């Protein structure tokens, strides 16, 4: 041991341990916060379970019957599909106000071609689905090439698509009977299989398939990782070599495609093609996404959350109705759900190591 210089002798009295992280004691709440940070879908799943049990107690056994639970699935199926499309956009830190307008417009195009112009239904559906992708591409290109904010872009295209829908439909519904006669294929997703009291429509199955496929794409492919990276930090994504513009346009096109398919499914769900249905579909889809724990700031949240979010809204509406609660209190309850969901999201974001 070498002799220390005089000025170093003060070190003798100091701690000689190697520097280390302090093993701080975590409170239960902090642990919960941490778990939720890593698994953002836990909250909606827990809320869904709790609300099912709560309404089972409040509204009775009829609420919890297989038929009613399958009915809730049917009632949320279309908004669920829109929420899937919306999730894709919101994960990129964008927002799409035009999802429902694209959906209705494409269902009107399909119906008009097949019922009024005698185009084979298969062709009509293909035209509608391609139309959905083009509508999405329009959103995506305006956002990436002209650099318009997504909110403004889709606020504009919402009105444009809605006006086109009214023009093409003449504001008239296409009647169920006319669809049955000319193009029953349009109602394909209204068919159902009955399993022990439950009535599972093809539309419900389609919704689940859409969620599973999109979940796979987002979590198991390079494209999906790019989408999350863009939502988290656009510049960092760009610098790490992701072709952000091209990816963004592809996201909007895929969302448009999902909306068009939802348009097809909506014909089976509603029975007729009504230009006035689902006017608030865009807001309902955002509601489902937010309640599902997907962060509006982008880059965080699982698309499965949106499915649970849509189901939570459906369970609340069905449960409150069966308990004989007036419609306005349903609206009231959904409002609080949104605020609580975002508050929880903010709390989780503040997680410390």
């Amino acid at each position, binding site marked *: 041991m070498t002799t220390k210089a005089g000025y170093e002798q003060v070190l003798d009295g100091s701690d000689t341990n190697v520097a280390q992280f302090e093993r701080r004691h975590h409170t239960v709440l902090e642990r919960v916060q941490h778990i939720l940070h890593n698994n953002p879908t836990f909250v909606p799943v827990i809320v869904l379970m709790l609300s099912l049990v709560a309404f089972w107690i409040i509204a009775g056994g009829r609420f919890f019957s297989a038929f009613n639970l399958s009915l809730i699935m049917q*009632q949320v199926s279309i908004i669920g599909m829109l929420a899937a499309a919306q999730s894709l956009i919101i994960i990129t830190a964008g927002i799409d106000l035009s999802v429902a307008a694209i959906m209705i417009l494409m269902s009107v195009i399909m119906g008009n071609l097949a019922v009024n112009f005698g185009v084979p239904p298969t062709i009509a559906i293909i035209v509608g689905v391609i139309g959905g992708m083009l509508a999405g591409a329009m959103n995506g290109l305006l956002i990436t090439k002209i650099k318009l904010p997504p909110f403004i872009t889709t606020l504009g295209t919402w009105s444009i698509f809605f006006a086109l829908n*009214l023009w093409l439909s003449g504001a008239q519904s296409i009647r169920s009977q006319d669809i049955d006669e000319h193009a029953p294929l349009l109602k394909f997703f209204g068919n159902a299989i009955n399993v022990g009291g439950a009535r599972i429509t093809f539309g419900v199955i389609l919704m689940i398939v859409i969620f599973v496929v999109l979940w796979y794409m987002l979590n198991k492919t390079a494209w999906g990782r790019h989408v999350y990276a863009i939502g988290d930090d656009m510049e960092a994504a760009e610098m790490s070599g992701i072709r952000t513009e091209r990816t963004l346009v592809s996201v909007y096109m895929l969302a448009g495609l999902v909306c068009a398919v939802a348009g097809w499914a909506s014909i089976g769900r509603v029975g007729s093609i009504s230009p*006035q249905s*689902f006017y608030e579909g865009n807001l309902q889809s955002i509601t489902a996404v937010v309640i599902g724990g997907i962060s509006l700031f982008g880059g965080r949240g699982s698309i499965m959350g949106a499915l649970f979010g849509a189901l939570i809204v459906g369970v609340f509406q*069905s449960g409150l*109705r069966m308990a004989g609660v*007036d419609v306005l209190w349903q609206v009231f309850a959904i409002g609080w759900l949104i605020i609580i969901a975002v508050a929880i999201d903010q709390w989780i974001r503040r997680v410390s190591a």
Partner: protein
Amino acid sequence: MKKLLTSSVIALTALAGAASADINACLITKTDTNPFFVKMKEGATAAAEANGISLSTFAGKIDGDVESQVAAVETCIASGAKGILITPTDSRALTPVITQARDAGALVIALDTPFEPASVADATFATDNFKAGVLIGEWAAAKLGDEAANAKIAMLDLNASEISVDYLRNNGFLQGFGIDIKDPTDIGDEDDPRIVGNDVTNGNEEGGRTAMENLMQIDPEINVVYTINEPAAAGAYEALKSVGRENDVLIVSVDGGCPGVQNISEGVIGATSMQFPLLMASLGIDAIKTWAETGTKPQNTEGLDFYNTGVELITDEPVDGIPSLTSAEGLEKCWG
């Protein structure tokens, strides 16, 4: 100074009067998407052309869009309209701006939906919506005969705002059916056990289907369905069809749109009360012309606080004592 100002105002007024030989009028509808209002606009436009009136038309974006209607009335005031025809999207909220319009010298006529109170406007040309409800209520009760005492009724209404058209049709139906309606301006305050429940449809197919599904969850044996309009009825029918009950339920509705009348002939809807939007609009334009030329205001139908433009029951299964038209006759008179 004050005198000078007054006289120049008079001069200006005189000038304006001389310059506008043409009569300006406005038509403001709830939306321009509902075929009912599309037809109304057609009727008004045709009548305006025939009378040499220049007509501007406005509409809300959706049912309940008060903002757009207020802005439209303000535009009409600013453009010096002699008369305003309006289907108020909210029977109470528009009162202040309508009063402004009347103060500015415009004749304001409510079409289809009355204001509350009706005296907010100079006149109301409307369907007797209560009567429209009574007709389908009486028809449903007569159709069921003795079974009416055990009926299970679903009420599919418009929306949470409970506007006048909504409660008038709803309560008219119940009274026609023979149910004590309690407060005639309130929906859902009845305690008759035959009513299974009320739900809202937003007046479209999607809402009609969902509402019917919901009420069937409360009581799957519903056998009478009242609907606010025919698109809601079509939606309710789809819900019944999905559980195979479409043939044991009576669906009644109000409107008289052509798709609705066609649904009568195909047995989807049992009976509907037809109203006449074209007539409302053309009468409205005539009234504005008379007002501009002679300063006389239109009179109400006796015993009512509005001018009744008529209502007809359309059904292919007529019952004794209630005059009705067949769907074939209805198709000649329907709108949209």
